[in-house]
């Protein structure tokens, strides 16, 4: 991982904590933890990507009462998959980056929904077919702008 990519991951994690924990913003703030995992894992091996996802997921789940571990699992899977994806997609193009981040966000919501407590999770259709795609679009736009600004010239998104 380049120093620029490492700084990006750290910056996204801190910014997410500032927005969502310190300021208490909800979905108004983009899912910067997810962007940290998706963008950071592209510069890591699958094992390190999974570890990054695990660590970030642990921070996210620290305040969860009834579905502890759901985000840890989702981000670990995405960290490993994101690192593996670099062997198949070089990922310098804008269409790839947008679809990679949007699909990553939707998969993150799907994976955490699958392993979360059935008694407390929301209806599949409303959450994963309506709300989640909108959030995925929002996250991918923000992530693409950040990646283009910070990782320009690094060779990988």
């Amino acid at each position, binding site marked *: 991982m380049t120093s620029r990519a490492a700084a990006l991951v750290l910056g996204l994690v801190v910014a997410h904590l500032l927005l969502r924990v310190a300021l208490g913003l909800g*979905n108004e703030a983009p899912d910067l933890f997810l962007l940290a995992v998706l963008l950071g894992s592209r510069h890591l091996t699958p094992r390190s990507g*999974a570890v990054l996802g695990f660590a970030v997921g*642990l921070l996210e789940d620290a*305040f969860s009462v009834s579905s502890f571990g759901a985000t840890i699992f989702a981000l670990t*899977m995405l960290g*490993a998959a994101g690192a593996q994806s670099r062997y198949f997609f070089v990922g310098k193009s804008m269409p790839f980056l947008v679809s990679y981040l949007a699909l990553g966000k939707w998969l993150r919501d799907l994976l955490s929904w699958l392993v979360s407590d059935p008694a407390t999770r929301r209806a599949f259709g409303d959450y994963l077919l309506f709300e989640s795609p909108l959030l995925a679009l929002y996250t991918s736009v923000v992530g693409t702008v950040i990646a283009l600004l910070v990782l320009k010239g690094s060779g990988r998104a």
Partner: protein
Amino acid sequence: MAGLSGSGNEGSRSQLLGAVGVVLLSLVTVYLPSAPQQAIAHVVRQSVLMPFTELHAFLAGMRARARDFDILRAQMDSAMGFVAAHATLAEENRQLREILLLGQRQSVRYLPTSIMRTGTSGTGSVFRVAAGTGQGVGPFNAVVTDHGLLGQVQQVQTDYALAIDWSHPEFRVSAMTSDGENHGIIEPVRGRFREQDRLVLSGVDFLAELEPGTEVLTSGRGGAFPRGVRIGWVAGVSETLAGWSRSYYVTPSVYPGAVTHAAITLPVATDSVDSVTPEAPADPGAQGPP
């Protein structure tokens, strides 16, 4: 596989096995018993996340201090007027209870505290209160505001606790109408969007027809919630089981997202000295209910 630092099949296999191992470990965290999960989460909250929770508390305190002084003064005047008008009520109530050979009501004391909500995923109906076992808070204590019932404490640590508000799917409270005639169970019903979440009073007698606007209070059954805390008002019929019972939608008296300060109800023994000792706020900036 190109791109790995230790290129070759051995390196890639080792990487994949390592990744699978971490994924399996993450699955283990999902299915751990509640106690280890709480312990892990507590360590994270008290280490990495501590500066951010402290910053949140600081900002909440600043916002509270910036509130309009005139509004707070008006609220205090209203409370003083209420107390003055009901000064003799407690004594009359005691005498009537003696005449009717009724026992004393369970005493409750209020512990003012500040509320913190994070925007992290999976915490939509969860909030943190700045008081824990050190201040006498225990699991299942009620959290109330001056408008009514907010939620219930779930996980308690030494100096803070995690609680759920009424919109959490696991929230339940036994309820009654303000005249004490009709009883039932209040539970949340999720809307398609979080803004559409509302409460339903179920199990009400079929023959009892509640008018919209009827006030609904906690009944105190089960002992988790003190009796007489406002929950909301009947909004309309939700469901009718012919000949058996009716369910009603209830408009909540408290909207959780707007609450920054609340009070935790702590049951005390009737003859305890605590019942006459004023409680120090857990948070200096906290404002309790009247």
